[in-house]
């Protein structure tokens, strides 16, 4: 599918479109984001959001799933039909199903209300970085995340300089997580990326290889710093 060119991003002041029906929350988001150097536009309904999106061509969309005029999920699906703009979904706690659905539809990440400003800004930056990477199609041959170094050309992984030996499945899983560092990946997305559409692949596989990856990469596998579990949703490599 051909996507229109992404806008030439104003590197210093990316434009965030906030689609959120609660005025106080919009106000908080505007204040926070502006304080961190973002430009902010607001929409209070899905319809308004759709219009703004076409008109303004924002760099990132912050989308509340609980909109008064219809489902935020529908809007996410619709946007993905013609745009690659990063979508960050905002939802209430305990709505794991919605989060998974939004992520599988192509949303880039989610935030659970209430969220702090630090988390918000970090997530937006991750989303913007991924969008830039995809636009540039520049897949780095070597990626470093904290102490972890991954060389995709030689398929070598090292932790704080020491080489780590991984099985093919472990390597495959870690590679996907590293490429999407900072972003949550659903069980389905991970299974699809690592095993293709092999019949019978299930979250248990992920848990097994995740456990062995943690044993090789984490100081204390029960208190992971790198390979984070999002219960009921998926996993995230902490960037």
């Amino acid at each position: 599918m051909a996507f229109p060119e992404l806008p030439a991003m104003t590197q210093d002041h990316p434009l965030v479109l906030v689609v959120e029906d609660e005025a106080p929350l919009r106000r908080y988001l505007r204040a926070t984001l502006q304080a961190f150097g973002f430009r902010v536009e607001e929409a209070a309904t899905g319809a308004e959001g759709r219009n703004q999106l076409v008109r303004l061509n924002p760099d990132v969309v912050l989308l509340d799933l609980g909109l008064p005029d219809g489902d935020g999920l529908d809007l996410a699906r619709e946007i993905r039909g013609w745009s690659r703009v990063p979508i960050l979904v905002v939802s209430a706690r305990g709505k794991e199903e919605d989060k998974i659905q939004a992520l599988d539809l192509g949303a880039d990440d989610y935030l659970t209300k209430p969220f702090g400003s630090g988390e918000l800004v970090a997530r937006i930056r991750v989303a913007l970085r991924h969008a830039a990477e995809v636009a540039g199609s520049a897949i780095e041959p070597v990626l470093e995340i904290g102490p972890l170094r991954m060389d995709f050309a030689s398929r070598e992984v090292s932790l704080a300089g020491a080489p780590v030996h991984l099985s093919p499945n472990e390597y495959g899983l870690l590679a996907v997580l590293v490429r999407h560092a900072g972003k949550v990946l659903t069980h389905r997305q991970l299974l699809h990326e690592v095993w293709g559409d092999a019949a019978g692949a299930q979250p248990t596989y992920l848990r097994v290889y995740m456990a062995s990856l943690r044993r090789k990469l984490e100081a204390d596998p029960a208190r992971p710093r790198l390979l984070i579990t999002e219960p009921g949703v998926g996993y995230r490599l902490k960037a």
Partner: protein
Amino acid sequence: MGQDPRPLVTALAAVALATAAGLIIFRRLDLADVAMLYVLCITAVATRTGRGPALLASVLSVAALDFFFIPPRFTFAVQDIRHVGTFAVMLGVGWVVATLAERIRTQTRLALERERHTDALYRLGATLAEGGAAEAIQARVEAYLREALGVPVLVLLPDRQGRLAPRTAGGRSLEGDELGVAQWALDRATPAGRGTRHLPGSRGLFLPMVGAETPVGVLALFHDFTLQPDLPSGLRPNDLWGFQVHGDPGAPAPLGGEPPERGDEQTVPPFRPGAAEARLDLPLALAAQLSLALERARLADERAEARLRAEQEQLRSTLLSSVSHDLRTPLGTITGATTALLDPGPEAAPGDQRMLLLTIHQESCRLERLVNNLLELTRLESGAIRVKKEWVPLEEVVGAAVGRMEEQLEDRSLTLRLGDAWVPLDPVLMEQVLLNLLDNALKFSPPGSPIELEAGVRGQQAWLSVIDHGPGFAAGEEEAVFEKLHRGARSASVAGAGLGLAICRGIIQAHGGTIQAVSRPQGGGRIILTLPIEGVPPELPADGLS
């Protein structure tokens, strides 16, 4: 009758045997002895088969005696006129013995039937004595009656509006027109359906069960007792509840069947005891007994419901007062702090602002936790939460929860001792449990004191415990801490509406597990939960070169 030729063959064979034996003994014994042999043969036939074969045996015996033994032998002619008297006696004995044997057999059969019925009623009573809600009785009784009567049986219970709903059980379903007939029987408290005067075209027989005041249900039987060809004689057409029974109007067998306890004098002809109703009075008596039990169950249900409503009302008001306290306190703090921020006094110190903001942040987090717990508990109690078990390593589920608590755990040392085990559980709900347990341990232990979390597997159970170094639980409080809104002596100074542990218990019970609070002898509280491990973890693919 007489489709079955076996009794007649038996009669023939018996007479042939008696004749053969007679021919053997005749050389040495008297003619009278041979006659006695025939009487014995008739008696035997009468007791083993029916009256018809017995009478046939009598006639054949007389003929055989005449032919083989009475001179002139091997003709039917009779020389001595006295032998005619012998024939008459033999025929008479045959008649009397056959009649008596038939009666004994009928009585035995009825007695057996009655015993079976008594036993059936007794066992129904035992089934009903287990008590329970009407629905539980319904299923139990259906299963029992299906076995006892040997025909498909449905117990239909009306809803509050008195309507019957379609029902399927034991491979038989009732809907459409048949359901209409059942409804008719219920509404008029009159038996209807097959074999009755009312709506006889339907496939089922519907016996209304009437309690003290209102109909409580319908017993639906799919068969027809009335069309069985070997119905004992004694029932006249339309004798019984309007059932069309065709039988021999003679020879009543009054065995004193009690009329059923329920009846509607206007619409139902008087009950007359007879042999046939032995078959019919079983379902009728069962229906009567059942109606009492069902009515009892319904009344008990209504009482329980009323009690539950009252309890819920009570709980709601307790919850409201407790929650409104817990909501107001942080809200008051937040409001106060914000006004201080908006309008700082002239003497305000530079550090005050940050301190006030921190207070607002902490109180907001507290409010959020409270609201989340309230929502969680409501969802648990309304049954909106379904446990979706997946095989998860203990390490992962604990890791996720601890990761979420890092901020609060900052000034604590948390020791984790985890076995390498996989457990079937709902990861989202279990995270909730662990967050609450850790939060609880933090709340009820002094700042800076250590917290321990241990987990492992013992047999078919996974266990997990969270240990704090606070004051522990007051004696006798170990059970009550899991009650909703319980606030122990130790919680007086701690915020929280006493929902966390109630949520934990709800979730753990939904998993089929247990949760317990204990005070450790060396001090501190410990909450131990267990989860059942059922089934085997899914197979894993070989991690070869892919």
